[in-house]
């Protein structure tokens, strides 16, 4: 019923919507997700032709081109066929007229009913949405926030529009009102096509079947709400979900590097995207469909970085790794959880090429990896459990960190030093001469692990394999290392294979968890699902015996 094609809206020189395409079918509820400044309110206003901006493109409503209508024709459509439920801020209702009058007004003005009939119908609507009769002749400022929202809803539906646009319908409400209103919209009004505009993922998941994510004036991903939220395919959508505090996901919050700037050539997200390529800064990616999902990304969405298929490694008769398949996507953390002897370290070492013979395939971005060339090591790096062992005590900190560059013959001595200093700063270590020239035995465990991370990062790898990185560290020190890793992921888009026996830690730092037992992956999925609804017994046992703060009084 609603077809938006190539919508461009600009206020002066500021192009807020930049080639937006959208489809809404009869009876569907679509949520548009956008943070502030993305132009979502402008979108709603543009559909109603209320935006005081320069508008280009087309919006077709049930076949009618809305931009081709005269002012009077458009007025006829407003409220009768497309209505808007405004965000309940102060003064969104006229303070000098009663609420009953305001609800009945559109019916009278559009000549659907006469004054008396309209008042009666308005009363019915208000009652249906839970406003008590005594409040009908009240003025807006005399009502509570929840009551005002009901009035707004009744008023919006007064003329029985075909399409209802809702602008942040639940955001300013308290908990109980939020639930009630959510139910009202779902039960009483489930049949009407709705466009829900919001920044709030909770609202979107409560009210909509389909979702479209708005960034930089364009839709960058759209699909079924539950699927998109569970498995986002655009880097921005994933980052948004990671930044949104909610009771479902368990990973620690992460932000998005940089900030939104306009205008930008090419893909609007590319300055903040951690998997951007050259193409991204040149051309705008089109919104393309694949497997029921629409994504606007030159790389087709989040790329799969590492793909392991049927990997097996045996030592004589012992099958340490038994036909393991897994994948790690760009910018995500996969936690490999298992007790000692499960084969997780062997798996890591095999991937790194520290075991030369194995069965199965390992692919890096769809390219099979046969032998480990220097290029491979530029992209995949590893840090080990015991930094004391993995760092040579003969070399100074600077020399340690610079070593990979020397091996790969990258840059001049001066450039290598520069890069080393920069990376050391990134892992939050001092960049003083004194520190650079000191030796490992002078440093604490935490500092050593940071040096190891710096060394691993200096080649700017895409994937970091971390094998029990906090095993030898105190909890408080380990916590900081984990936070560092999360920050690095936020800024560099680093993917991680996080190997641990500790599922409690795993769930705080990983997007997905794979449980390994006796060389096989027995369960794998999003971390919040593994942790809350495990399927396998072993997983349940792992969870049961994971660290908890037990209360004996219970």
């Amino acid at each position, binding site marked *: 019923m609603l077809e938006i094609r190539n919508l461009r809206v600009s206020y002066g020189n500021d192009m807020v919507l930049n080639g937006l395409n959208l489809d809404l079918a009869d009876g569907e509820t679509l949520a548009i997700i956008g943070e502030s400044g993305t132009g979502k309110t402008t979108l709603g206003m543009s559909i109603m032709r*209320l935006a005081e901006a320069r508008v280009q493109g087309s919006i077709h409503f049930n076949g009618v081109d809305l931009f081709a209508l005269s002012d009077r024709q458009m*007025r006829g459509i407003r409220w009768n066929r497309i*209505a808007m439920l*405004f965000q309940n801020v102060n*003064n969104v209702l*006229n303070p000098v007229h009663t609420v009953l009058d305001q609800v009945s007004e559109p019916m009278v003005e559009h000549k659907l009913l006469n004054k008396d009939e309209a008042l009666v119908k308005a009363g019915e609507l208000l009652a249906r949405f839970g406003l008590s009769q005594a409040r009908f002749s009240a003025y807006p400022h*005399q009502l509570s926030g929840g009551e005002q929202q009901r009035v707004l809803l009744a*008023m919006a539906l007064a003329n029985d529009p075909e399409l209802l646009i809702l602008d942040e319908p639940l955001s300013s409400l308290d908990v109980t009102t939020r639930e009630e209103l959510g139910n009202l919209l779902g039960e009483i009004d489930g049949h009407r096509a709705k466009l829900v505009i919001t920044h709030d993922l909770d609202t979107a998941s409560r009210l909509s079947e389909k979702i479209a994510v708005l960034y930089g004036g364009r839709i960058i991903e759209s699909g079924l709400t539950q699927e998109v939220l569970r498995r986002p395919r655009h880097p921005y959508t994933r980052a948004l979900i990671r930044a949104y505090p909610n009771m479902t996901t368990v990973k620690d919050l992460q932000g998005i590097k940089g900030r939104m700037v306009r205008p930008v050539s090419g893909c609007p997200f590319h300055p903040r995207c951690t998997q951007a390529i050259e193409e991204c800064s040149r051309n705008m990616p089109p919104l393309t469909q694949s497997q029921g999902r629409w994504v606007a990304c030159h790389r087709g969405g989040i790329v799969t970085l590492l793909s392991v298929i049927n990997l097996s490694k045996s030592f004589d008769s012992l099958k340490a790794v038994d036909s393991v398949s897994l994948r790690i996507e760009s910018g995500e953390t996969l936690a490999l959880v298992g007790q000692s002897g499960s084969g997780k370290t062997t798996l890591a070492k095999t991937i790194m090429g520290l075991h030369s013979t194995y069965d199965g395939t390992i692919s890096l971005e769809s390219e099979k990896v046969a032998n480990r060339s220097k290029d491979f090591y530029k992209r995949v790096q590893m840090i080990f459990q015991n930094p004391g062992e993995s760092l040579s005590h003969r070399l100074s900190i600077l020399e340690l960190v610079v070593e990979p560059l020397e091996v790969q013959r990258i840059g001049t001595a001066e450039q290598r030093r520069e890069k080393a200093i920069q990376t050391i700063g990134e892992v939050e270590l001092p960049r003083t001469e004194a520190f650079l020239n000191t030796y490992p035995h002078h440093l604490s465990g935490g500092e050593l692990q940071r040096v190891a991370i710096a060394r691993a990062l200096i080649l700017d790898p895409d994937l970091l394999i971390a094998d029990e990185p906090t095993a030898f560290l105190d909890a408080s020190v380990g916590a900081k290392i984990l936070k560092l890793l999360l920050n690095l992921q936020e800024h560099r888009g680093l993917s991680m294979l996080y190997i641990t026996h500790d599922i409690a830690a795993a769930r705080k730092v990983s997007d997905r968890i794979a449980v390994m037992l006796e060389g096989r992956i027995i369960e794998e999925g999003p971390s919040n699902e593994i942790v809350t609804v495990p399927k396998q017994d072993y997983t349940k046992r792992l969870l049961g015996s994971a660290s908890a703060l037990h209360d004996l009084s219970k």
Partner: protein
Amino acid sequence: MPSKHSLTTYGIAFFTILALNFFLPRMMPGNPLAAIYGDEALVAMTADLKAHLVARFALDQSLWQQFGAYIASLFRGDLGWSYSFNAPVLKVILGALPWTLLVVGTSLILSTILGIVLGIESGWRRGSKTDRAMLAGLMSLNGFPDFFLGLVLLIVFGVLLGIAPLSGALTPYSGLSGLPLLFDIFKHMALPVAALTIAHLAGGYLLTRNTMITVLKAPFMTTARAKGLSQKTIKYHHAGRNSMLPVLTMTGIWLGRVVTGALFVELVFAYPGVGQLTYQALLSRDYPVIQGVFLMVAVAVLVVNFAVDLLYPKLDPRVSHAH
């Protein structure tokens, strides 16, 4: 408290007016009777009349007793005696009152309504050529005092073009009645009303326009447009209804200005209202008349102010539970 200003405020104001009226003549040097009536009047009075008046106003007694007598006389409706008209002041004033009410009332209503409408239209088109022209034009007009405006109108329409009468409220000795009479009255009050209306238009206009500019930015205006209402409805029923409130509050205060304006205008057009009366009293130093007029006007303004205060909550529901 039902009104914006408390009853105490009005009480104090009323008392101040009374006190002023009372004490002013009595503080003048010399014979109190001379102060009240003026030297000229005294000359014209007989000794009997003087004695009678002294007794009536207890002028030979203490100040407090005099004040008491004064208040008492007010309650009796006795505003004193006008020597120049040789009649009770009250009667003289009441004779002239209807004409002033006609002119002042009409002007007040016209200038308020016109001011509000122009203010709405101007605010609606803020920044456009029409708005800027109206703003500059009305602000300039506002600078012209009512008496100058009246004189200009009189000269242009009365003297030069000869289409308006030069004085009076009626054509003397015409013996008209019915429709021709109404037309005659209208012909005579046209210019005075025009002068007063134009001079006081700007106040309401500016206030309404300013309020309109603010109101148009309010969220409920977006709601109104989204509802697909007609331009007229949005402009008047929604924006206008909110914008006219400040003007209505000011009506009471502006009444005082319009009344004084009437004083000047009546004098210019020789219109037989209270203003003309006052002017003649000023010339002939007929103090009782001046005082009587002062009292009536001041009290009238207070009463109107009070009434507006009481009425306001009915128009602006946000105020009804305040204070």
